[in-house]
């Protein structure tokens, strides 16, 4: 039974790679290889990022004879990243899967359902934690040399970390399921809860460099403290160096932990999944209905979908939350910002305007609601296809949502920057206009990805929102574009004025936006009709 369920879970997990939703048939071998290579490439980019972090730490730690502390630190980063990466994925996968009713109606032990579902969470956690642990061990072997005990230790460490990530995210999922049964405004509370977790994560992440610097400066002291006061962390560290006792002990603890969480989930899974959440029946009150135009109705529909799903809000509307925080930050820290910007502008002429325009654009790049939007139609696709609306209207309404939840906040940030910073008039124009243009570009790009790589057959909406190739490419593409916008200025700063550079970026962005829009108008409707 478990084997069958695992097969089903695998099929769902890898469907995006093997199945071409546009042609509704198996992807060609070349297509599969292409897709797999794309995944590998994106994974390598992330591995490269964390590899740099590992390089920063490893040299110093090994010289100080604190190899174990290197492993402890990187393991903690991996557990944090992995757990937050798969945060709420376990909740959606375990408790909100659309095929729960079907599976529970069959003579399948709930323990098998849990195990098969946890596999998906495990793979995701393994991907996230492996992104850090893999460069961690490779960098260590290059720096300190490879030995058999260390080889075994590192393999065990990677395994342990992936299981601990699973244990933590499963526990969080279980806790969220319990909480959500007893609260009325689940969506709001879950969204806030996720934002709080994410806020903590972002604070840690953005201060990682200084935290690491502090670590490295006081590594010996920290090492002593951990060894004496938090012994389990020391044990985790010496697994990587190949300590046999630590390897065995950690394996036992990991297996016991994993079994404990599995037993906990198994005990209440049936009652949690079949329980009726606390909902308030509303007594219908007849009221005057509001009439909207076709496009407004479609955009409102998209917006209703967006605000109905905490996962959708958190994963695809994060930029909006950041922009609100950034706006408050700008108001509070405006004097410091002006001082820093003026100083930098003296060192690199024009950088203030470029950084302001690109900074506001960077915040916009974190919203990608258009990218999973076609996939999210799922089984409801028949509705818009049977209505007298053109495919183009449907598609543009999806891009409009992204613009709607991004542009006003981008404008707010841009306006604040224009007021706070001593910019020239021409630069002010670019600080306002360029982020807005980039917002439209990202919405169009996300929409294009959505129609190029749709996945309409999912049992859990976390799949199109978080695990689809369309979302990954849209998000990475946006980030790379913004990074390119900022970094390209430095080699040109001496010869180009800021407004000449910003004019060039604006023209490129405009050309890209128009080109993608042209594709959407010309080719996307046909693809949509064929879905």
């Amino acid at each position, binding site marked *: 039974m478990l084997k069958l369920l695992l097969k089903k879970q695998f099929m769902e997990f890898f469907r995006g790679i093997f199945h071409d939703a546009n042609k509704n048939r198996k992807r060609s071998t070349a297509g599969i290889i292409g897709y797999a290579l794309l995944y590998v490439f994106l994974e390598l980019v992330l591995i490269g990022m964390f590899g740099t972090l590992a390089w920063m730490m490893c040299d110093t730690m090994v010289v100080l004879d604190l190899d174990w502390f290197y492993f402890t630190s990187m393991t903690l980063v991996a557990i944090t990243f992995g757990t937050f990466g798969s945060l709420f994925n376990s909740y959606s996968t375990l408790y909100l899967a659309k095929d729960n009713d079907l599976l529970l109606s069959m003579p399948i032990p709930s323990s098998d359902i849990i195990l098969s579902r946890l596999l998906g969470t495990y793979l995701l956690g393994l991907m996230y934690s492996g992104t850090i642990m893999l460069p961690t061990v490779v960098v260590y072997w290059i720096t300190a040399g490879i030995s058999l005990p260390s080889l075994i230790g590192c393999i065990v460490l990677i395994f342990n970390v992936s299981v601990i990530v699973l244990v933590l995210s499963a526990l969080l999922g279980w806790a969220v399921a319990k909480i959500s049964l007893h609260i009325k405004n689940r969506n709001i509370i879950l969204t806030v809860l996720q934002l709080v977790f994410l806020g903590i994560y972002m604070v840690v992440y953005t201060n990682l460099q200084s935290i690491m610097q502090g670590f490295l400066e006081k590594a010996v002291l920290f090492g002593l403290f951990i060894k004496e006061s938090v012994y389990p962390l020391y044990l985790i560290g010496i697994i990587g160096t190949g300590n046999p006792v630590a390897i065995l002990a950690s394996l036992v603890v990991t297996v016991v932990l994993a079994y404990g969480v599995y037993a906990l989930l198994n005990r209440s899974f049936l009652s949690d999944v079949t329980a009726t959440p606390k909902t308030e*029946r509303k007594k219908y009150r007849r009221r005057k*209905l509001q009439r*909207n135009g*076709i496009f407004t109705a479609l955009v409102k*529909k998209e917006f*209703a979908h967006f605000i109905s799903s905490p996962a959708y809000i958190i994963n695809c509307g994060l930029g909006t939350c950041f922009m609100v925080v950034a706006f408050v930050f700008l108001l509070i820290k405006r004097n410091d910002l002006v001082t820093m910007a003026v100083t930098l502008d003296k060192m690199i002429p024009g950088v203030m305007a470029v950084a302001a325009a690109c900074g506001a654009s960077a915040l916009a790049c974190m919203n990608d609601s258009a990218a999973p939007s076609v996939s999210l139609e799922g089984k409801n696709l028949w*509705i818009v296809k049977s*209505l*007298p609306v053109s495919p183009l209207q449907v598609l543009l309404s999806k891009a409009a949502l992204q613009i709607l939840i991004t542009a006003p906040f981008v404008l707010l940030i841009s306006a604040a920057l224009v007021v706070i910073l001593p910019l020239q008039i021409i630069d002010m124009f670019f600080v306002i206009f360029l982020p807005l243009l980039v917002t439209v570009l990202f919405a169009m790009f996300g929409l294009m990805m959505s129609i190029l790589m749709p996945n309409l057959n999912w049992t859990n909406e976390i799949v199109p929102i978080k695990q689809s190739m369309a979302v990954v490419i849209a998000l990475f593409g946006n980030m790379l574009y913004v990074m390119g916008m900022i970094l390209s200025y430095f080699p040109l700063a001496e010869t180009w004025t800021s407004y000449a550079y910003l004019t060039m970026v604006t023209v490129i962005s405009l050309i890209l936006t128009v080109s993608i829009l042209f594709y959407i108008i010309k080719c996307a409707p046909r693809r949509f009709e064929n879905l």
Partner: protein
Amino acid sequence: MLEINGLSKSYGSHKAVDNLSMRIANGEIHGFIGHNGAGKTTTLRSIAGIMQFEEGTITIDGHSIKDEPLACKKIMAYIPDNPDLYEFMSGIQYLNFIADIFGVDVSTRDERIHRYTDLFEITNVLDDAISSYSHGMKQKLAIVSAWIHEPKLILMDEPFVGLDPKASHILKQMMREFCDQGNAILFSTHVLEVAEKLCDRVAIIKDGKLIRSGTVEEVKGDSSLESVFLELED
């Protein structure tokens, strides 16, 4: 109202609908009968404009579904066999959305929504999320959404599945009244007694091919529709 000529649709090498031709006149309730996988849903989805087809033509009130899909969809409503509606909306939001798309004015939509939801006794749950509705309630909502913009042609795939006896009775009355006003309905069903009593004409489809069509009397002759169907299936 509806004219299908030489409709063919394949899934890979399997021909789901094979050179199907039929005509539905104004005022007719047309039943579409066939075994599971015979091609009924594929035909209905092709007419509704939500599935591409390789060969043939479909015209609705003189408009080709391939060349003028929007003109066709403006005068048509489709109710699928499984009412997957927007679960993130409430019932009233969904009906208002449909009315917006079809440009139904406020007072008319208000009157129609309440007339039909009162009939199906779902008015008091209109503010609840569709996700909390039972299958039957979703089916009723889908039916109301089809009626509120007063189309000329309604396509229904197994419309009676999930409806309670009272709602089935009301739906039959609505269908009759709708066609008596000069409109047309094409619906698929496995309930042959319903087809026999309700339909003006029936079409029997087997392996994607139309094997018999005509008025109920012409098709069944002296026996029942069930016996004719079973005979043709063998």
